[in-house]
């Protein structure tokens, strides 16, 4: 039982992180109809920037305070992501307006490759670590309830907390700020939004920046967990089924989807994987989604599609 809880909680933790990445997807898709395959690349890129900036902060600028260095690095990375967002809008999306979704998907694939290459040229391709001082030591909960209690990794706890906080912040941002409302307007109907004078291009830059921000945060958390390396960009692949499961356009969908898959993954790995050779979490999410889609082609929270002729 305790073991079960552990896996469950572990699942929730990773799930929360998936949701974080998935959130990036959803924001961009809502606002610009782009299925942003590059989200993973952005995570890696942001993390690399973060890691290297803080390093350089130490070495070049001789900043001793880790906090300060990280802070500067964070700001730097954030600025970089905004620049990236701006460039993407200018060079790619701006020129692919009202193309089909598939075309845009391909474009973001291109962006992925570019950013992977570019990021590693810029920041090098070794493994770097991000240390924002998250406690590494484990802690035991509910020891009173079962013997041995439930082992939880503090780091995960913090991470999940940050993620949750971020999700809440974004939700508020969308609900209560002018930009947020504009974004939702754009999401609902591009033409209409434009006609009432919402500048699409600016909106897109903002959205991509926000996505960049989530990518950065995700990058930092994962980075500090597993170290910053190329494989980090694969986290996007983990988040894909989450997005689809949630239904592409729904923020809550992304979060719940994340949790479901996070948990499902862990549990299945433990209880099924062990039987059939293990390592099944790479595909569990996808296969799960596959079956969900067969029942609900538009995902759990997506809008229904009606064919008009």
């Amino acid at each position: 039982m305790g073991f079960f809880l552990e896996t469950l909680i572990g699942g929730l933790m990773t799930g929360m992180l998936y949701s974080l990445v998935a959130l990036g997807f959803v924001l961009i898709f809502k606002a610009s109809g782009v299925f942003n395959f590059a989200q993973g690349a952005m995570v890696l890129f942001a993390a690399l920037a973060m890691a290297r900036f803080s390093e350089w902060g130490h070495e070049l600028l001789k900043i001793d305070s880790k906090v300060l260095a990280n802070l500067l690095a964070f700001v730097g990375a954030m600025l970089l992501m905004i620049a990236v967002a701006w460039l993407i809008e200018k060079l790619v999306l701006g020129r692919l307006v009202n193309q089909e979704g598939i075309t845009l998907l391909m474009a973001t694939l291109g962006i992925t490759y570019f950013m992977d290459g570019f990021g590693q040229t810029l920041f090098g391709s070794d493994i770097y670590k991000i240390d924002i001082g998250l406690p590494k030591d484990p802690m035991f909960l509910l020891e009173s309830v079962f013997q041995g209690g439930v082992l939880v990794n503090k780091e995960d706890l913090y991470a999940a907390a940050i993620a949750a906080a971020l999700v809440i912040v974004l939700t508020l941002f969308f609900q209560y700020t002018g930009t947020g409302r504009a974004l939702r307007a754009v999401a609902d109907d591009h033409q209409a939004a434009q006609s009432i004078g919402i500048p699409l291009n600016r909106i897109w830059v903002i959205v991509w920046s926000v996505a960049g921000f989530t990518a950065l945060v995700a990058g930092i958390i994962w980075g500090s967990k597993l170290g910053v390396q190329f494989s980090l960009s694969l986290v996007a692949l983990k988040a894909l089924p989450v997005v689809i499961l949630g239904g592409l356009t729904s923020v809550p969908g992304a979060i719940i989807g994340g949790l479901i898959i996070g948990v499902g993954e862990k549990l299945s790995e433990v209880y099924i994987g062990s039987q059939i050779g293990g390592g099944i979490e790479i595909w569990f999410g996808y296969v799960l989604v596959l079956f969900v889609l067969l029942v609900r082609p538009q995902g759990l929270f997506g809008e229904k599609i009606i064919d008009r002729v």
Partner: protein
Amino acid sequence: MLYRENGQFKTTYTTDQQVFPILQDRVGIGLLLAFAVVGVPLLVQDDYLFRAILIPFLILSLAALGLNILVGYCGQISLGTGAFMAVGAYGAYNLFVRIEGVPLIVALLAGGFFAMIAGVLFGIPSLRIKGLYLAVATLAAQFFWDWAFLRIKWFTNNSSSGSVSVSDLAFFGLPIETPVQKYLFCLGVLIVFGIGAKNLVRSHIGREWMAIRDMDVAASVIGIRPVYAKLTAFAVSSFIVGVAGAMWGFVHLGSWEPAAFSIDRSFQLLFMIIIGGLGSIMGSFFGAFFIVALPIFLNQFLPWAGSLVGMTISTAAVAHAEFMIFGALIVFFLIVEPHGLARLWSIGKEKMRLWPFPH
């Protein structure tokens, strides 16, 4: 410019709807094939050229061809091509090692057959799922098979880490060992499949695929069954892809492991058909050649260019540059010529026919 079409009038539908209705084209393609079959083996002495460029080009052309039928003609986006190649490769492998004296060609076709079954299975969702959702759904295949060949020992004849190997290949008694032999074998297979594919896309099954791609509601109203159209597309596509996968393993690599068919392979093939041209047989070849040749070109060119400006460029740097250039090219093509090299080719051809007129 070289076209002289006066007097090339058609008195039967058969001649009118042949693949190359214009005499000059028929001559051209004839010469090209002759060169590929006779010229190349005679002229090219350097094995490296065969191993590094020509053979991969031929096999990946085949794979791209298969993928193009699904994505380009039927409009069903797939990110799981690598997996179907893998199924082809391991399927063929199992037949080859488990049954004594199975001829190579049979093994390859069997590989295609297994891939076809896998393809149809994973194609079934396409009946309900559209566009982006489907794109992601196909990734399920990719990851599932990656995993399967890594973890399920039976597939790999209980070899560790899923790496397997085959040897002494032959085609009706003719050995397929030297690069030239391999090249000719691949060329032969490619030509056969190329013709077959062309025949399909210009016949009514092809029209049904394109109808579904262009306007699925209208298609069903004129009596086309989406189920049939999509599943045949998946079947044909993954059959070809499977054969290509088997050839990649058997002929090109000789010994391989699941990594050879990772998701990167899927993307690579996708890029081939985007750059080459969606919905064009010719395009598949263009794309394949481009993507096979580019890295090799860069590997030669970048260091050389670097040395000009007096800086040494590491292989890692070249690799990264490759990534960047690929990415940039994809975006470039999507923006400038969404129909890829094939469209440029056909435009050029039109211009030649209208020369000296612009339109």
